[in-house]
Structure formats: C-alpha cells, structure tokens
C-alpha cells in the first residue's frame, strides 16, 4: 500500500510545483486576465494541498469562497477597468532587480530557518483528520467571539465596498 502513499506524495509534489508555476504566471503574465485565471488555478491547487493535509472542510471553503466569490470580484474589477483590446503595456516597474535580490535573501534566510529548526510532529495530530463536527464546535465554542466580529467586519466591508464603488449621484460620467 505504501506505493499509493508514495504516489500520493508524488502527486502532491506535482501539485505544489504546478501551483508555483501558476503563481509565477500570476506575477509575470502581461495580460491581467490571464494572471487572474492563473490565480484561480493557484487557489484550486492550494485547495488540493489542503486536502493533502487532511483539511477538507477548509479546502471546500477555499474553493467556495476564493474561487467562487473572490475570483468573480477580481474578474469583474478587471473587466471594468481594463480597456478592452488595448495592447497591454509594460506591467512591471523599475524596481524588479532590487525586489528579486531582496526576495532571494528572504528565501535564503527563512529557508535556512525552516531547514534548521527540528519541527515537533505529534503522533496524535498525524493520525486523525479534523471532523467538521469538531470544527463547528470550536467555531461556536471557544472562537464564538472572533466569529461574531468577523460577521460584523464582513457587513462593514460589504457596505463600504458598495458605498465606495457606487457612482456619486451628481457625477454623470
């Protein structure tokens, strides 16, 4: 049976690689719409990674919220702001070399940390996946306060977004 696990592991690595490629796509593609779609691909990829980490509820939510809603938002925004058919002009600004250097340093340092520290892996956590029941209990139990606050913030963001995006009455353009 360990072949399957190896296969699965292999599958996960492939997914990770794909996600990274798509992420690069998001960042470098000249056409904004393409980068948005790459983002969708990245999101679905991360959902599969969650499945690999036995967090299937979060994966489902990720797809439902991110791919369903946020992507729609982004695409709407792109459609409303992008000049249809206009030749896409240079997308990256001048500070890319500095940014890349910084990033390499960053990756090196954090990578060093990750590789060097002995991550404690508890047996119990490895075994069981989290059932949705325990998640629900936690949400409604010890995390009920953040849960309520998140709902308030969501409402606020909702109203805020509408107000900001709405065209002012006297502004006829």
């Amino acid at each position: 049976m360990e072949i399957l696990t190896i296969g699965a592991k292999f599958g996960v690595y492939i997914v990770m690689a794909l996600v990274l490629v798509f992420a690069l796509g998001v960042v470098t593609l000249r056409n904004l719409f393409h980068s948005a779609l790459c983002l969708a691909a990245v999101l679905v990829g991360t959902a599969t990674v969650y499945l690999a980490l036995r967090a299937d509820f979060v994966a489902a939510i990720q797809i439902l919220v991110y791919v369903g809603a946020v992507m729609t938002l982004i695409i709407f925004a792109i459609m409303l702001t992008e000049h249809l058919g206009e030749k896409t002009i240079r997308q990256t600004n001048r500070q890319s070399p500095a940014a890349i250097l910084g990033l390499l340093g960053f990756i090196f340092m954090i990578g060093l940390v990750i590789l060097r520290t002995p991550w404690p892996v508890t047996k119990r956590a490895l075994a069981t996946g989290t059932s949705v029941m325990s998640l629900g209990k936690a949400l409604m139990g010890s995390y009920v306060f953040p849960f309520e606050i998140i709902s308030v913030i969501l409402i606020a963001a909702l109203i805020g977004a509408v107000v900001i995006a709405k065209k002012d009455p006297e502004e006829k353009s």
Partner: protein
Amino acid sequence: MVSADHILWVPLLPFAAFIANILAGRRLKHRAAWLSVATSAVACAIALPVCWAVFHGAHFANQITWLAIGKGSLQFGYLMDPLSATLLFMVTIVGTLIQIYASGYMAGDPRYSRFFAYVSLFMSAMLTLVISDNYLLFFMAWEIMGLCSYLLIGFYFEKESAAKACFKAFLTTRIGDVGFLLGFLTLFTAIGTLSFSKMNAIMDGTYTGPAMLIPVSLLVAASLLIFCGTIGKSAQFPLHVWLPDAMEGPTPVSALIHAATMVAAGVFLVARSFSLFMAVRDVLPFVTTIGTITAFMAAFIALTQTDIKRILAYSTISQLGYMVTGLGLMGLGAGTFHLTTHAFFKALLFLGAGSVIHGTHVQDIRQMGGLFKKMPHTATTFIIASLALAGIPPLSGFWSKDEILLTAFASGNILVFGVLLLTAFMTAFYMFRLIFMTFFGKARDPHVHAHESPAVMTLPLWALAIGSIVIGIPGSPFMHHWFQKFMAHMTHYPEYEPSAFVMGCSITVAVLGIGLAGVIYLKKTAWAEKTASVFPTFYRLSLNKFYFDELYSRFIIKPFTAIGRILFSFDEAVVDGAVNGTGQNTLFLSRLKNWFDQHVVDGLVNFMGALTYFLNAIVKRLQTGLVQNYMLFAFLGFLAFIAWQLKLI
C-alpha cells in the same frame, strides 16, 4: 484726681480757628481776627474757672490711650497742677490781649487772615504744651510752636532779612529741640515712663509701681539734654543769636512769641521736670552759670543797641537768664513767679514799641524824641512797664526779681548775687535810656510825624499795664508769699525768709540805673559819646553783640560749608565718575555681545537651518510617491530585521 475734661476745649478752640482761617481765610477778610480773638477769649473763659479751682487746691488729670504698642501703651492727657494752672492763666490772658492789639496793628495787611491763622495755631500749640501731662505731647506742641515762630518771623517773607531770620531762628531752635528729644528719650529708657506725674512720683520716691533700678548717669544725661532744649528755645547763652533777628516779624508776634509765651516754654520745661533736676543736684550749678552768663551778657549788649525792638529782645534774653538762674538755684517758685510777671510787662513793652513804630514808622530810637506829648497812652503804659521791669517796689517786677535775688543771696551764691545785681542795674539803665531817647527830649528827626494808636491798640496796653501792676501781689508779702507756698504744694523746694538787705540793694540799684540814664540822656547828652570813648573795647563789644554772629559764621558755618563743598566735589568726582564709568563699559560690553550674538549665535542657527535643508535634500528622495517603493523599503527593512534576528549580520 477729679477730671475736668472740658479743659480739652482750651487748645482745640484756637486750633479750630486756625483751620477756619486757613481754609476760608480769603473770604473771612477782616472777620478772621474776630474769629481768633473770640476763640482765645472763650478758651480763656473756660480755663480761668479751672485755674481758680486749682488755685484753691484742686488737682485735675486724665489720660486716654493714644497708641497701644504691644504690651506698652502711650497715654496722652492733661495735668492741671499749680505750675500748669499759673502758666495757663498767664498764657490765655496775655494771648487774648495781644490778639486784640494785633487785629488793630495788622489792619490792611494783604495776608491778614493767614497771620491770624498762624497766631491761632500758635495759641493752640502753647495751650496744649501747658496742660500736657507727658513729654511726648509736650514735645509735639513744642515743635508746632517752633513751626509757628518760623512762619510768623518770616511773615514778611518778601524781605530778604526776614526770610534769613526765620530760617536762622528755626535752625537754632532745632538744635535745642534735638537735644530735648534725646533727653526725654534717655529719660524714658531710664524710668520707663514719659508722664510727668509718674516721673514726679518716681523722683520723690512715692511711686507705687514695680521697683526699678534707675541708673543715675542716665538721669544726668537726660536732664542735661532736656536743659539743651531750654537753651535753644529760651535763647540762652550759646543759642541766643536767633532772638534779636527774630524781631523781623510783626511786633504783636514778637510780643506774643518772643516775649511772653514761646520763650517761656523753655523755662516752663525746666520747671515741669524740676523733680528730675532736684534728683540730680549737681546739674543745677551748670544751669545757674548758663543763666547768669546769659543775663549779664544780654544786658551788656542791650546798653548800646539803637533799634527799639532789639533792645527789648536783649532785655528778654537777660530776664530769661534771670529765670533760669532762679530755677538753677532750686528757686522753683521764684523762677515761675518771675516768668509770669515778666510775661505781662514784657508783652506791654513790645506792644508799646509796636504802637510807637505804628505811629512813627521808624524803629531807630535815634530818630525819635519827644513822643510823650504825641502818644500819651503808649508813653505812660510804656513807662509803667519799664518801672516794673527795672524792679521798682510796688510793681510786680520788683517782687519777682527780688525773689530770685533773695534765693541767690540766701543760698550763698554771692558771686551770682553780685552779677545779678549788676545786670539789674544795667537793665534799669538801658530801659530808661530808651524811654528818655524816645519819649522825652527834643524830636531828633524833623520829618517823623507820630500819632497816637487807635483805641483797639491802646486798650490792651492799659489792660496789660494794670496786669503788670496787679500780678506781683500774690508773690509779695502783702499776700504772705501765697504764690511760693502755692508752688510748694507741687514739689518740695527750699524756701528762704525775705531779707530787707536784698530788697534794699535791688531798690538802690534800680534807682541808680534810672538816675544815670536820666543824667546822660536828658541833661548831659554829650556824656553819651564820651562814655563810648572812655571804654572803647567794651563799647565795641556791646555794640557788635560780642561778635557772636561773626564767630558762629566764622567757626561753624564756614567749616560746614567747606566740608559740604568738599563732599560735593568728592561725590562729583568719585560717585558720578563710578556711575559714568559703569555706563561706559556696559556700553562697550553690549557692543561686544552684539557682535558675538550676530556672528556666533545667529551663525549657529543659520548653520542648523542650512544643515536641515541639506539633509532634507537627501532624505527627500525617499518619498517618491510610488506605493511600491515604500513596500520595497518596508520589505528590505523587514529583511534586515530577520537577518539581525538570525544573527546573520
């Protein structure tokens, strides 16, 4: 201690008159005189019954607390004992008469109301002095009198001589006053109280208060200093120079102040503090010597004087000398009695001289002559007063002078007795020299037209004449020396039996004087010049007033002015020099500072400004406006932090 509080009205009424005259003087015009006379008359009316009661043995005193200082308190009040009663009696009567006379004499003077204001103020001060019961109130009144004498002497301040005279009078009396102030303050430190009655009790040993150790040396000092006050005020030997010059004032003033009352205040002071002097016996010889010297010297100068008022001034000084000698010889009764009688006839003499001047408008007796017929009332009253002054028996002068001579003779001071007799002779001589030159003989100056003074002036003259005749009786044997016994009630002092010898000597001396004067100035007028050539030095001495003025100016005034000039130059050079010097170098320093401030401080500030601008130019680049630049900087910062955290750097 029955209290007669209404006595307080006596000093207050003249004071009210003073205020009325000062404030509403211009509107009152001639009515100002009636106001002053009225208030003095009323004061006199109030005072006489009280004095009469005191004459019959009553004794009034009352105090109110004037000032409470911590535990001690200052009591002001009045004391009516035999001494103050006599003085009050004398002052009120003489004062009122003189004011009546003055209302006539001063008629037509532009500053009429102001004159009567000053006179009323003087009256109120004198009355307060007389009835006051402690040294401080006494001293306050004493000072106000000094002020009034200054104001009244300098009444005709247009005249240069008057201004100088009042200034001179004020300064010399001030010297005496300072002594008097120090005196009663040392007394206060010695016996702790200022009130006369308490002092008398302490000195007599009958004081019931807490026993205290009284340092005798302090008492001696106190008495001497108090006597200085008398010397200053009563124009005794060293400080007598101001009285002759004080004649610049109007004659009623001279009469009131420089004959009857103010100068008498000095003698009254000694009388008032007689218990102190009695307690310090060895001071008395000093007092007597001063008294005799003044008497002899003044009389000697009066011999050769030609101004009518100056002669009377010198005679006053010599009579004051008499009183001081009397008191010096422990003859309290004699001194006070002579004081009272002298007040009456000396006032009369001055008023007489006043009416003569009023009539002839001339003061020099050499220009007068044969005025008897033209001014009969003035002449007769004048002659009566002169007889009293010379000491002819029935008149008051004889009794009081005789008392003093008796005290001198009986107490064994033969030298003093001799000098006093000689002075008496000289007094008689110069008085009658004056009379014969003015009233008898031929009119020397043709264009002098004398006329009799009006009734308002002659009536007071006659009143005073009668007074000077009558006032002698209480002290004379006719009333069994009532006055001396009356005085003895107050303080105990040695009394002597009247001796016929002393009386005889004084009468002979008086008659001799009158005779000699008559001979020289009526019959043999040539002898006058001869006597001058016979004793040239004495003549010149007498004429020039023993050169006292010159001496003073030479030895006191000049050095002081010299010192003043030196101090002034010193001040000019050193002090002002220092001030200007500091001014200069502050200026220099400020210029220096200004340069420093300009270049260094401002320089620094500008430098800071430039520095910030320079740094700004560099840092400004950072704010590019691009959001992503800021993100990059933040990220790099974050990176550095991680690196540091991981100890890589």
